[in-house]
C-alpha cells in the first residue's frame, strides 16, 4: 500500500481544504488535462520549487538488440521530461526508504 492514487490525493486535499470533493476532483482533472494539452503543444510548464515538465527531442539512433546483436533503427522521437526543482531534490534526499531506513547517512534504524 505504498502507492497513492488520484483518489487518495483528492481525499487528502479535501481534508486539508474545506473544499467539496467534487470541486477538488474537477480542479485536479482540469489541471492534468491542461498540462497534457500544453505538453502536446510543446510548451514547457514550470512549477516553482516542484519541477518542470517539458518535451525533449531525441535524435534517431542505431541501437542493438542485446539478445541477438542485430542493429535496430530507433527513429527520432519526443519524450516528456520532468526535471525536479531544488526543493523537491532536497526532499527526495531526505526520503525514508520503503523499509523505513535511511540508506545514506548514519541514521540507520535497522534492528
Amino acid at each position, binding site marked *: 500500500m505504498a502507492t*497513492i492514487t488520484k483518489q487518495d490525493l483528492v481525499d487528502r486535499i479535501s481534508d486539508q481544504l474545506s473544499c467539496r470533493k467534487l470541486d477538488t476532483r474537477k480542479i*485536479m482533472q482540469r489541471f492534468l488535462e491542461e498540462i497534457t494539452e500544453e505538453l502536446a503543444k510543446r510548451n514547457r510548464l514550470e512549477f516553482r520549487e516542484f519541477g518542470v515538465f517539458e518535451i525533449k527531442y531525441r535524435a534517431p539512433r542505431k541501437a542493438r538488440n542485446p539478445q541477438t546483436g542485430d542493429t535496430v533503427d530507433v527513429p527520432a522521437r519526443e519524450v516528456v521530461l520532468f526535471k525536479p526543482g531544488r526543493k523537491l531534490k532536497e526532499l527526495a534526499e531526505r526520503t525514508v526508504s520503503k523499509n523505513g531506513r535511511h540508506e545514506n547517512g548514519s541514521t540507520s534504524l535497522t534492528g
Partner: protein
Amino acid sequence: MTKADLVERIANSTGLTKKDTAMAVDHLIKAVKDALREGRHIEIRGFGTFKVKQRKSRTARNPRTGEPVQLPPRKVAVFKVSKELKDRISENGLSGS
C-alpha cells in the same frame, strides 16, 4: 506557462474562483510532495507516476579536468510518463518535421 497561468485557465473552465483553484492546485502539489516524503509512489492514471528512486554511487569525471570524482549514492525524484500521455504527445507528431 506557469502555475498562475494554469490556475487562471482552470478557474475559467470550471467556473470556480481563482482563489479556490489556486489553493487546490497548491495543495495538490503539496500532497504529491508529502506522499513522496513518506516514501510512497504516486500513481496518477493517464498521466504518470512520481516516485523517489535510489541512485547508486558512481565514478564521474570533472568534464573540465578529466579528473575522476566519486559521487555518493543519492535519491532522486523521478516522474515516469504514462503510456496515455506518451501517446498523446506522439499523436501530435514531431514539431521539427
